[in-house]
């Protein structure tokens, strides 16, 4: 697999334990108590979307559902609120994987801004239907910060795959 489809660099295959580890770390970041501060990125959605694009065969709606439930429990939100949003996000990200891989990282991020907004809008709709208060438009700032982190985080998560097993300067891997 390449960093993007236009790149001539060939990456090592991903290690599955690293994927799961990164998702668990994202879950931990999600649990950091930041209160009502607007603009905190949705770490789990971000990492989940990245792996849904990179490894559509392995990470998808099932992972989204489980992670969503764990976020719901940890945050004291309604059961199924994040699960629903992440399942839809994983479905759309899996579907967009082939197309998005033709773009450089910054344009990939732009593809995912509407998906993150949709994720948040789903959660908003669920809670408003249940009679909660509207948290204000600054709620959607979180999508913007998630989008801004797409490129750096993608590079960070791909770093282990750039490491060759044994070093050889004449080889593209």
């Amino acid at each position: 697999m390449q960093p993007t489809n236009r790149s001539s660099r060939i990456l090592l295959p991903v290690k599955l334990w690293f994927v799961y580890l990164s998702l668990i770390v994202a879950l931990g970041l999600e649990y950091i108590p930041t209160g009502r501060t607007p603009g905190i990125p949705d770490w789990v959605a971000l990492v989940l979307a990245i792996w849904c694009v990179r490894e559509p065969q392995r990470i998808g709606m099932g992972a989204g559902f489980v992670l969503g439930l764990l976020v719901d429990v940890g945050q004291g939100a309604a059961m199924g609120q994040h699960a629903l949003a992440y399942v839809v996000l994983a479905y759309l990200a899996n579907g967009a994987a082939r197309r998005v891989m033709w773009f450089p990282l910054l344009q990939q991020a732009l593809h995912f801004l509407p998906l993150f907004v949709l994720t948040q809008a789903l959660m908003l709709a669920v809670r408003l239907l249940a009679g909660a208060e509207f948290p204000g438009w600054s709620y959607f700032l979180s999508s913007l910060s998630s989008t801004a982190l797409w490129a750096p985080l993608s590079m960070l998560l791909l770093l282990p795959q750039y490491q060759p097993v044994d070093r050889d300067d004449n080889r593209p891997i």
Partner: protein
Amino acid sequence: MSLVGHKTPPIFKRGLTPVTRLSVFVAICLVLLVADLRFRYLEVVRNALSVVTYPLQMAAAKPADFVRNASRYFATLVEVQLENAELRRDHLTTGERLLRFELLEKENAQLRELLGMSQRIDVKSVAADILYNAPDPFARKVILDRGAQQGVEAGLAVIDAKGVVGQVTRVHPVQSEVTLLTDRNQSIPVSVLRNGVRGVLFGTGRGRLEMRFVLADADIREGDRLVTSGLDGIFVPGLPVADVTMVDRSSDAFARIDCEPLADIDTSVQVLVIGRTAYPPPPPAPDQER
């Protein structure tokens, strides 16, 4: 459409198609949501899953703890001295009032005994610190550093030095979740201190409270003090809750009564979880043959 955009060749079966799987997952989520929000069936599932999430949550709370402690460490000496002086003054005045209160309590107990009335209820309390606001942006909740192990139960009232802050709605082993009075789904039965008119106080979600279902000609004025009535059988009666700031009697049947909470709901740090030691017997079942 397959997972990655091509029709699946029959030799590479990958189970259900993505659309089917999406529908199945969405259906499960909707069932969960209804079961949780409408019927509150899922507390068991929540508790079971929280066993998994708890270590991660504890680890994630460490940075927040660090920031809190660091800011406390760097509070200047002058600030602490000023605060200490103020607390000493407060302590003196409250101590004097407490002395009189004990006397009155004894007198009250004797009088009640003379009249053959039941004694006032016993009260238990747990002191707690507010750790942080709950991360759910759709509700006004805070997390306390005391839980089931310290005797906190769901339903207890949470007060600060000035009045009621909220109610414990979910209890974990060493933490608990408090829904603030200003949350839209929170309500508290109150009575007017001046004349005992009863009503129910609801949060509006905008930092204000509203007393609903009070008849337009009820005797309530601006500036009236509202205290818990205790009629719900859960709250301790007589805790100060709010002051009436506006009464609008122009609508048809019910008055519109705006209230201002007495407690520093958004800023208080130290709180007291307070509740009854014994609950009153359940109300008789409504007559079936009516």
